[in-house]
């Protein structure tokens, strides 16, 4: 995201905000859906995240890159959405993703069963394309922790990954 657009949003330019949304909406919706496992919750999380950006753009430090700041906000909205869903749907009744299936859907659903702390760095790394260091910054954890979590996530998905040839 270029600095001029951010500067214009800070000055209250609604068209600049629309451009920001046009550029970030799709990856944001994918990210949120991968984290919360629901398109509806993802849409709510993205909407709330952009709303927070609109309100709090004045707090953003223009000297720093915009996207990590944005995804930290979106990640917090996703966590909030998950907490909200958890109150409504008991964990035991949530559908389990166990058996390997014969398409990418099986792997995606397996990712959905990972603990949130493992799912978050995995999505940032393989869906959003962030390096471990950037992912660690967005998550607010150390680089070692981020790397360790990705490694553990991959181990849990080993059965799907090793049988990938069947996909």
């Amino acid at each position: 995201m270029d600095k001029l657009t951010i500067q214009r949003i800070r000055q209250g330019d609604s068209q600049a905000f629309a451009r920001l949304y046009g550029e970030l909406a799709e990856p944001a919706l994918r990210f949120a859906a991968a984290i919360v496992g629901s398109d509806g919750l993802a849409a709510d999380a993205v909407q709330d995240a952009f709303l927070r950006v609109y309100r709090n753009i004045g707090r953003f430090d223009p000297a720093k890159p915009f996207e990590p700041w944005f995804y930290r906000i979106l990640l917090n909205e996703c966590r909030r959405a998950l907490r909200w869903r958890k109150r409504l749907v008991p964990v035991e009744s949530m559908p389990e993703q166990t058996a390997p299936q014969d398409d990418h859907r099986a792997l995606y659903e397996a990712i959905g069963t990972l603990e949130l702390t493992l799912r978050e760095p995995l999505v940032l790394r393989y869906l959003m394309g962030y390096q471990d260091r950037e992912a660690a910054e967005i998550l607010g954890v150390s680089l070692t922790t981020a790397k360790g979590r990705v490694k553990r996530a991959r181990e849990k998905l080993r059965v799907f990954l090793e049988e990938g040839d069947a996909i």
Partner: protein
Amino acid sequence: MNRQQQDQLLTEALKRGTDGATGQRARVWRALSAKINQQEQERKQRDMKRRRNLWLTTAAAATVAAAALVFFSLTPQGTALTNQIVKFFAPEKKMDTQIEGVTGTQQAGLATVAVVETLQLESAMLETPAPTATAAPEPRKLTWDDLAIHGVKLDTAGEEAIAGLTVAIGAAPVSNESTDDLSGTSRAVKWADGTVAIVRNGKLYSIEATAPTAEVVGLHAGMTLDDFKAVLGEPHEAIGALAWGVGSNDNLIVTVEGGIVTSVKVSLVE
């Protein structure tokens, strides 16, 4: 399957799994725009309400202030209350002020008067001194050397005094009478202009004159009593006359008729 292939598999699975979410992009924007517009409206209404409240508060405060100003400045109760408050906070200071001549006598020295005033009164006094302290000229204090007419001083030898007065008057005495009494011999010498010199026991005891040329410290018969007072201050009451003196004696005695001094007399007091 190597590591790179596994990474690609993960990426592909995540992308395909989230394809459905991207279809909500337009719906989210519509909802987001509506929410932002709603919040903007609410913010504008809040700002307007805040401005209106601020204006009302300011107007109310101004009204109260104006009412208070009117009360405190225009009504007797308000003025009294203001004065009480001012007095309550004014520092009280005791000041000793020395004022000369306040006793009203020529011999009055420095009188110490303790004056308790507020700070405002003190400054006012310092800026504009009381007229009694400086405006009135100091009365002349008579000395023995002042007791002379035509330059002839009292206590001068009798013959010398008579000769001096005769020269000054420019005429010989018209009478010269001597009398003996218990205090000794007295001699009364008179001139035609009304001057009378008393020589007692060989010394000039007194001179009395009615002529305007007979001056004592620049004062003479024919002048007003106020002229005498202006120079010498307030006189003492003497028998049928007014007097000033050296110390507490009556040494300059005048008779007054209708505010005009008709005779001047300088005299020793035994």
